[in-house]
């Protein structure tokens, strides 16, 4: 284009913008105008706030907009498919079990490698980890999906075949095709709808009708069908909403600005709190072009984001004005950039470009632990008067607490006589009942003639008047009784910010928290010693080591104990508070903290340990430790029938001839005797934690309550397969609160619904769902068998056989393989010629490390009894002196691990409280608050356990928040002792102030490993919620905060530190010196040259220039 006006210009071109990253394209389009010339339109430059050319650069400040409006990410498009593995559940009404899709073989439908049938059943019908419940959702795009099941070998896809509404059926067919080739609905492809809460709906077009995957009840059960959509309504009910284990989490376009909040409670990791974060925000950007690189057809364009989230004084904080923000919530957009100033020198310009911006909020900086006085701005645009609860102070980080003493307080000068009229005004404070909640600002009033100011500050009120109430007026007579009791009250705050009003803000600080803790008078607030075990002259002794500190690591060889039981027994209440490093992958052992034997409190993890081994001979019960050292010998008047061992430190029940039942504690003391006349000549038993079921020779089943030892009749049922087949049952099991009669004896459980029992020379495997099947047959008499995980060990008289529970043979051996070491002459004998009696398992912790191994009782050829342990096939035996085989010896379990492992949990952390009524030993209160460590991220957590026997509450707080509260009869235990023994940390407490290892004569047994406990606090009272907060907060930092106050529209400027690529003034101050071709290789000479250069360089180098490095390069000389 040429004209007489532009003689010096031969053409004007509109270059195309280019961005360096090939995955990012600039939003622009070329257009040829009707007038014949071509222009390039760059979206980012449309409506730009300001454009300047200076310093070899062209600058453009964009409008407030999303970056994705200006740039496109090409990598976002592409494969939209996703897949995840989940169960497919249908929620049912309250009291009914949820139904799940399941691959199973019913009604004779064939399951082959080509096809699998689909059914519906609840989770407990099989083990919930059974693979048959799991499906892979293969979402091909936003519209279509397939449902896949993999049985470990083949992939099967859910097909619905049928061209009309009736006659279709669901079958999984094996298939291997590639999902990328699927573009439309087919037999195995469904349309779907997946919502944010994890509900999936499946649709399919059958003929011309759109149908939905629905559960339907028919006489034989529940079946899936494809039902036509209802013409009206949402077509959303619990028969067609499939609950999956995932939520739809759409990928946000990551190009745009975001404001991220992290979950504050998981301080040890960075988990996004999506509720409090904001994604895809607007921002402003500076688009720049270095014009030395512009040519007539293209120009490189780059950009950087302008800091629109910074407040007046450059704080990044929540709580901007309410004008620009979505949903009326305080946001993060604090600045509007308007223009750019680069100086008057067009070529050189300013080194630092200046940006002018508009903002609306005034910053008030508040230091923690101080009082800050300030005046509200002269304009509070857009408000004339702003209630404190409508301000952004809570979002700015104001601290909410349970009492004024532990929260932020604010005082606003009274402008008129109608403010703060109720009673005597004390303060305005931010009230919050839990640390997770944001608080509300309330005014506290008190009656100085009834309560002191300090007392009014530190309590929580229970009377809550409404915002408009004037308590001095109408309500006072109504509330007289309340006021007499409470003496003060809170009311949603009347405080309002007006222009130029005087404000005092009192920020809580570390000193306030320390003061609360210091005045709380704990019994224990730090460690003063720990105990470790040491061998002194061949005997192991417990050595007490002085240690002062707030943190102690228990590493499997130390523990500590606190002598607090007398004070707590006086007060009848206690609080335990500590920080513990919780790692879900660590197994901490048996009892971590406490003194729970048959009374007291303890924190347990693996409750399936077996510290004791029991051997029965006629009238005598021998109790050994796992090294077969005799700890106790208990004699009974009549012959022992059965020993029922419960969890490690619980009392156990001994049944003896003559229908006599004893309760015996772990030290072997008989503490109760009961004549169980309700149980007649029983055959089989089934034990649970609090009861034992018996089946008698008259085929009646009875239940004994273990606490009271009272006996009641029990109804029982038969398995369908045994109905009309058996004339006599001699065994009993309890499954899902139903008691079933069984044949056989020696029931052992593999998992929740599979158990094994012995019937003559057979071992029967009985799955509750699939019925019994013959598992093993022996030619010789089966003496005993036992199961650990999936290993089953069977004993005949002189041989053992090991199989897995799928009947695959693993190992066998004979009694002659077991050795008896004779230490005196350093030889071994074999146990050959003896006979096996029984087998059991030991589960124990030594220096915090878990060991599981078999223990076998056998009679030697010398007629002495032997106990053997080890790992198959290497077992060593020890003689039990004075113990001989009797009729009843083989009837009893050695450790009862199989039952204990079924009844108790070995992973959850259990806060267990046992209280005993001293007037009635049968009246035992057991309360447990449990949590699974796997639901916690690794890190330090604060735990507070509080027992308030006056109010009848036991509560666990985790990180200052109530986790669970359990109640019991208020006042009942005010006259009872609570603790029997000292309070242990890092070891298992036992009776008589011993730890379990000492009692067992096995040093370092049941010590905890990898247990870090810090800041232990023990109180002889139930501390207040305020004190629990304070202790949790004592290890945390209280931040300084910056409040936002509406301050009218104002402008300010900011500078950008920028390195201009082509600025002549801009060069590095660091130089490298290269010494070439000196052919010197001697490093000493080189170092001397370097030193000389450095010394002389000072004389001629420009000021400010520094030598970065001196290198030697030799060319042509290798």
């Amino acid at each position, binding site marked *: 284009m040429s004209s007489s006006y532009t003689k010096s210009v031969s*053409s004007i071109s509109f270059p195309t913008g280019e961005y360096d990253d090939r995955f990012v394209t600039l939003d622009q389009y070329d*257009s*040829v105008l009707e007038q014949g010339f071509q222009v390039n339109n760059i979206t980012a430059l449309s409506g730009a706030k300001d454009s300047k*050319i200076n310093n070899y650069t062209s600058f453009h400040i964009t409008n407030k907009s999303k970056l994705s409006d200006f740039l496109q990410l090409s990598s976002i498009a592409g494969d939209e498919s996703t897949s995840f593995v989940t169960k497919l559940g249908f929620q049912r009404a309250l009291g009914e079990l949820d139904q799940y899709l399941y691959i199973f073989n019913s009604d004779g439908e064939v399951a082959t490698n080509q096809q699998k049938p689909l059914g519906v059943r609840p989770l407990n019908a099989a083990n919930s980890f059974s693979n048959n419940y799991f499906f892979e959702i293969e979402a091909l795009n*936003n519209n279509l999906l397939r449902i896949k099941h993999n049985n470990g070998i083949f992939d099967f896809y859910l097909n619905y075949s049928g061209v009309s509404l009736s006659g279709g059926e669901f079958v999984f067919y094996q298939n291997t095709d590639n999902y990328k080739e699927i573009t439309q609905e087919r037999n195995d492809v469904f349309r779907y709808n997946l919502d944010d809460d994890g*509900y999936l709906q499946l649709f399919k077009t059958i003929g011309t009708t759109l149908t939905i995957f629905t559960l339907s009840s028919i006489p034989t059960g529940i079946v899936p069908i494809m039902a036509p959509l209802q013409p009206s309504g949402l077509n959303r009910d619990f028969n067609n909403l499939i609950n999956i284990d995932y939520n739809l989490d759409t990928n946000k376009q990551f190009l745009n600005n975001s404001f991220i909040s992290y979950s504050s409670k998981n301080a040890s990791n960075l988990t996004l709190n999506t509720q409090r974060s904001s994604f895809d925000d607007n921002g402003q950007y500076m688009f720049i072009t270095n014009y030395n690189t512009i040519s007539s057809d293209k120009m490189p364009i780059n950009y950087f984001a302008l800091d629109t989230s910074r407040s007046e004084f450059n704080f990044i904080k929540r709580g901007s004005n309410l004008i620009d923000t979505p949903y009326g919530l305080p946001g993060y957009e604090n600045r509007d950039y308007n223009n750019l100033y680069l100086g008057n020198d067009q070529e050189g310009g300013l080194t630092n470009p200046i940006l002018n911006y508009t903002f609306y909020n005034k910053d008030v900086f508040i230091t923690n632990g101080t009082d800050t006085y300030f005046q509200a701005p002269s304009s509070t645009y857009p408000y004339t008067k702003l209630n404190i609860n409508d301000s952004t102070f809570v979002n700015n980080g104001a601290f909410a607490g349970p009492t004024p003493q532990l929260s932020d307080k604010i005082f606003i000068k009274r402008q008129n006589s109608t403010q703060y009229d109720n009673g005597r005004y004390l303060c305005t404070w931010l009230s919050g009942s839990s640390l997770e909640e944001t608080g509300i600002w309330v005014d506290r009033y008190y009656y100085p003639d009834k309560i002191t100011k300090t007392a009014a500050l530190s309590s929580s009120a229970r009377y809550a008047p409404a915002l408009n109430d004037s308590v001095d007026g109408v309500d006072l007579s109504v509330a007289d009784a309340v006021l007499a009791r409470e003496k003060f009250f809170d009311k949603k705050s009347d405080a309002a910010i007006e222009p130029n009003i005087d404000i005092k803000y009192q920020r809580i600080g570390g000193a306030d928290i320390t003061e609360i803790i210091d005045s709380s008078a704990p019994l224990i607030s730090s460690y003063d010693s720990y105990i470790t075990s040491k061998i002194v002259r061949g005997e192991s002794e417990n050595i007490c080591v002085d240690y002062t500190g707030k943190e102690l690591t228990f590493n499997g060889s130390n523990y500590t104990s606190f002598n607090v039981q007398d004070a707590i027994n006086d007060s009848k209440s206690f609080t335990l508070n500590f920080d513990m490093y919780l790692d879900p992958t660590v197994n901490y052992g048996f009892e971590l903290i406490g003194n729970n034997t048959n009374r007291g409190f303890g924190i347990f993890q693996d409750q399936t340990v077996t510290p004791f081994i029991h051997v029965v001979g006629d009238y005598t019960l021998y109790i050994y430790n796992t090294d077969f050292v005799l700890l106790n010998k208990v004699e009974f008047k009549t012959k022992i029938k059965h020993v029922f061992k419960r969890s490690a430190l619980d009392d156990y029940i001994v049944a003896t001839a003559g229908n006599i039942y004893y309760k015996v504690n772990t030290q072997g003391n008989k503490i109760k005797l009961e004549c169980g006349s309700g149980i007649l000549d029983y055959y089989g038993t089934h034990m649970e934690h609090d009861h034992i079921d018996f089946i008698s020779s008259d085929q009646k089943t009875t239940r004994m309550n273990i606490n009271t030892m009272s006996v009641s009749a029990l109804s029982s049922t038969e398995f369908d397969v045994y109905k009309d087949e058996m004339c006599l049952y001699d065994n009993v099991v309890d499954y899902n609160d139903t008691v079933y009669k069984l044949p056989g004896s020696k029931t052992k459980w593999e998992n929740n619904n599979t158990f094994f029992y012995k019937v003559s020379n057979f071992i029967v495997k009985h799955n509750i769902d699939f019925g019994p099947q013959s598992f093993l047959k022996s030619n010789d008499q089966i003496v005993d068998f036992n199961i650990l995980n999936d290993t089953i060990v069977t004993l005949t008289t002189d041989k053992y056989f090991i199989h897995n529970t799928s009947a695959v043979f693993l190992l066998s051996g004979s009694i002659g393989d077991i050795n008896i070491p004779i230490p005196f002459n350093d030889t071994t004998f074999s146990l050959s010629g003896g006979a096996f009696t029984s087998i059991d398992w030991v589960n124990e912790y030594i220096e915090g490390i878990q060991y599981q191994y078999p223990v076998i009782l056998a009679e030697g050829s010398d007629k002495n009894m032997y106990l053997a342990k080890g790992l198959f096939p290497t077992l060593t035996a020890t003689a039990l002196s004075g113990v001989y085989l009797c009729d009843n010896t083989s009837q009893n379990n050695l450790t009862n691990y199989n039952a204990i492992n079924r009844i108790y949990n070995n992973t959850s952390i259990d806060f267990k409280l046992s209280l005993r009524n001293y007037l009635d030993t049968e009246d035992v209160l057991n309360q447990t608050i449990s949590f699974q460590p796997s639901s916690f991220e690794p890190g330090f957590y604060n735990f507070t356990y509080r027992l308030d026997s006056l109010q009848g509450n036991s509560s666990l707080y985790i990180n200052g928040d109530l986790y669970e509260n359990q109640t019991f009869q208020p006042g009942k235990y005010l006259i009872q002792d609570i603790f029997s023994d000292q309070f242990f940390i890092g070891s298992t407490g036992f009776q008589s102030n011993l730890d379990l290892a000492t009692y067992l004569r096995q040093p370092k047994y049941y010590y905890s490993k990898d247990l870090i406990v810090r800041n232990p606090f023990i109180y002889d009272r139930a501390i207040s919620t305020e004190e629990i907060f304070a202790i949790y907060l004592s290890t945390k930092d209280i931040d300084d905060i910056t409040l936002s106050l509406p301050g009218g529209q104002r402008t300010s400027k900011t500078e950008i530190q920028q390195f201009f690529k082509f600025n002549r003034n801009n060069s590095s101050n660091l130089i490298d010196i290269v010494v070439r071709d000196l052919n010197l290789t001697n490093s000493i000479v080189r170092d001397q040259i370097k030193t000389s250069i450095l010394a002389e360089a000072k004389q001629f180098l420009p000021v400010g220039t520094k030598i970065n490095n001196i290198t030697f390069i030799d060319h042509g000389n290798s």
Partner: protein
Amino acid sequence: MSNIFIKLPALSGTALQSSISATLEEVTFKGAPSIMFVLTGIDESKSKALTLDINWGDNSNIEYYQRDVVYDYREQSILNEVLYGKIGGSVLEEYEHTYTPTLSTQVTSLSVQFLIYFNDGFFANIFQPIRLLKESYYDSIEKLGILNTQMIGTSASNTIANLQSRFNRRTYTTFFDKD
């Protein structure tokens, strides 16, 4: 920004008896219009729209929307409920698209397709033809003002200039070639 209101007379107040296909009247635009297609006028009182596929007709990706099973009032506008009585949200909202005319032809004709599946199993296939005419300097720029200029020192006094349209304040970085 221009609005096109999409209406389906066959659907007002009555349920669909069968799937329908409708072609609406052609609309002509000049330049590179941003068009807001307003679908809120389609009656959903008898049957709700479950899904919506939009083919913009200009080779851009086909967009797919589906009705939220649960309407999240925390994040979504209630205006459609208040103004049009669409309780629980709807996929029939407003959708914006920017068209750019092709460089080589004077007139570009294309049609936008809206495919709506209703929960009674019927669908509505709506075509909206659009005709795009080339931009004109007098329509989409009106007048160029010079924001600032700079000679490029390293070259033979070529100049770059930021020009701004008085019509829509769009800035154009231009290269003035002296040779």
